[in-house]
């Protein structure tokens, strides 16, 4: 049980929990919660490999995490803005009811 494997298992379970949330949740906002979890799982992986993996002088791991945090924030902002716009239009955030986009 090296620290690396602990962190990897942690990120795996985090990812699966996030995926589960995304697939089962009916409220659009909580899907965003799932997405955040998945992103964080990836971040944990990066930091784990940076910290316990082969030595990496120019910090590619942490920097990648930095960028992914920024992108995640941006994504959350736009996602919520969209959800709110849809909510203003259809008065509901229930995903199953927003199924007008089909063949």
């Amino acid at each position: 049980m090296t620290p690396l494997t602990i962190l990897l298992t942690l990120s795996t379970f985090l990812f699966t929990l996030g995926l589960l949330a995304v697939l089962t949740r009916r409220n659009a906002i909580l899907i965003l919660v799932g997405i955040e979890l998945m992103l964080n799982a990836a971040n944990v992986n990066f930091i784990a490999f940076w910290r316990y993996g082969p030595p990496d002088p120019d910090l590619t791991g942490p920097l990648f995490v930095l960028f992914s945090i920024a992108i995640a924030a941006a994504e959350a902002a736009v996602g919520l803005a969209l959800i709110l716009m849809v909510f203003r239009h259809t008065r509901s955030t229930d995903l199953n009811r927003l199924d007008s986009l089909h063949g």
Partner: protein
Amino acid sequence: MAEALHPYLPCLLWWVPFLPLLAGGIIAFLPNRHGRLASKVAIGALLVSCLIAMAALACALKPVAEGEPYRLATSLTWFSYGDVALKVGLVLDPLSAAMAAMVTFVALWIFIYSVGYMETEARFGRFFGFLSLFCGAMLLVVLSNSLLLLFMAWELVGLASYMLIGFYFEKPTAAAAAQKAFITTRVGDLAFFLGLIWLYRQSGTLLFYDHGHGLLESEVLHSLAGAATLGGLAVSSATALLLLVGAMGKSGQVPLHTWLPDAMEGPTPVSALIHAATMVAAGVFLVARTYPIFGIGGLESVPLTAAAWVGGITALYAALVALAQTDIKRILAYSTVSQLGFMMVALGAGGVAPAMFHLIAHAFFKALLFLSAGSVIHGCHGEQDIRRMGGLRAAMPKTFITYAVGMMALAGFPLVFSGFWSKEAILHGAMNWPGGYGPFLLAVSAALLTAFYMTRQVLLVFFGSPRQPGVHHPHESPPVMLIPLYVLATGAVLLSIVGTPIWPWFEEWIHGGSATYHAGALMHSEALRLIGLSLVIVTLGVGASWAVYRRGSTDSRAPDPLAGPLGGLWKFLEQAMGFDSLYDKAVIGPLAFVAGAVDALERQVLVPLMAAGESCIKGFGRWTGASDEQGLNEGFNSLCAGLQNSADSASLSQTGRPQGYLRAIGLGVSVLLIVYFWLIA
């Protein structure tokens, strides 16, 4: 003062032609109601360029070395393509300095004169615009150091003359005259252009003086002389002939002279400036400028003999026709043609100096005559037919005096007038011309006739009793028109000083020598003989004319006293020997015929041919459309229908619920990965 100015001369020289062109440009932008301002701009510009020209003349006065005339040639690259550079530039040598000074001086007084003459004219500003444009172009012709620049200015001068002749464009005759002038000079210009190109191809340069490799410098001249053309004729003489044809077009020599008399449609200052002093002289100047090319084969080389004979014939022809003219300005026009013929004879037989001296003298007194004629017309409120005038001596004494001075200078009254000395120099040259006495005889008879028709004109216009009481009380012209007349008159007289054999300053100056004063020159036998001959000619001409027209009938409709005895010949002369009708028949007729033939061909043959082609294409189009409609489309539609149905069934899987899609993706990925691991494990 000359030395002080000398270093600035090269760029200062450019201002001489540039200022009038600039004034022309500015006037073009001035609205018509600012006529006064336009005239001020034009005169101001010309005044400055005249001052510079005078200063340049002062600089050019003393020759650089014995036998070597003063020459200051500038050249700048107009544009270069590849390694070849087209150069243009200006040259200041006695020839161009004298011409520039004369052109600017005469033009200046003509401008001042036309301020008065054109006062009532609506398009006052426009007139001055064209005049300054013309002066600029003429100065460029005179000063140019490159044949190309000279040709461009030549065209510009042609354009300016077209615009000025056609100034009263509402009159159909003026428009026709302008067009005629432009086209006939264009014929001459074509030959000139061919000569230019041939010279350029042969010598590789178009600059006259270019530190040794210029067109007129020995090195190129020898190469020109050396090269022979098809008829065994040296290239230099062939090109010289072409240049001569160009000069004939512009200076109105016999075959191409018809436009000059008709050019009298333009206002009188125009005739004075362009068709007396400057433009027509451009042809002569061209030959003078390129004289080295002409004179390669010695004095009786082919081009020079051609020039002499052409000049002689023109002089005699024009003098004869002038006898029978009744319009005051047409007489002077024909007299100009004959004087140009004289200059051509001078060039052919006597070399550059006598021709240039006669040109400058002629410019002064012919401008004087035209302006006085203009003041006569102005006084008689537009009347131009001398048969209706008469006895104007009392009504317009000042104009009469100036007119008389002009007439005497033209006719060659002895000793005092420049005309006499310039004609004497020409006759001197023609006499001991190695190529025979033909041109000499022609020149002598022309001189006789000149004296005759000039006195006829003076008698009919100023002496006798007014034939047309209806010419309602002619009045003297205002001082603004008279002062130029006085100036030109004094000019015509004073010029004789520089041309007499006693002190042949002008001739020496042209050839770069130093003029020595030798009093006894007149006493030489040969000079005496010539002077005597001239005296005889003048007295004969004036006496005969005086005898015929002394009584002068009081009835304007009465036939001319000469008409009776000459009868048919008189009518023939009056129609200018039928050249116009000859041209109509010989040139315009066939052209019209050819145009008609081509039009007929096109209408009868080509149009039906096109129609046939069109119909068969339409047929082919209809056929392909039908086949495409039935065969192709139906098959394709059925194929699409099949696709459509399968697509509909497939679209059922799209429920629109994003989570459904995600689940599908998740399953797909995991199945793939499992298979992948199952395979490699």
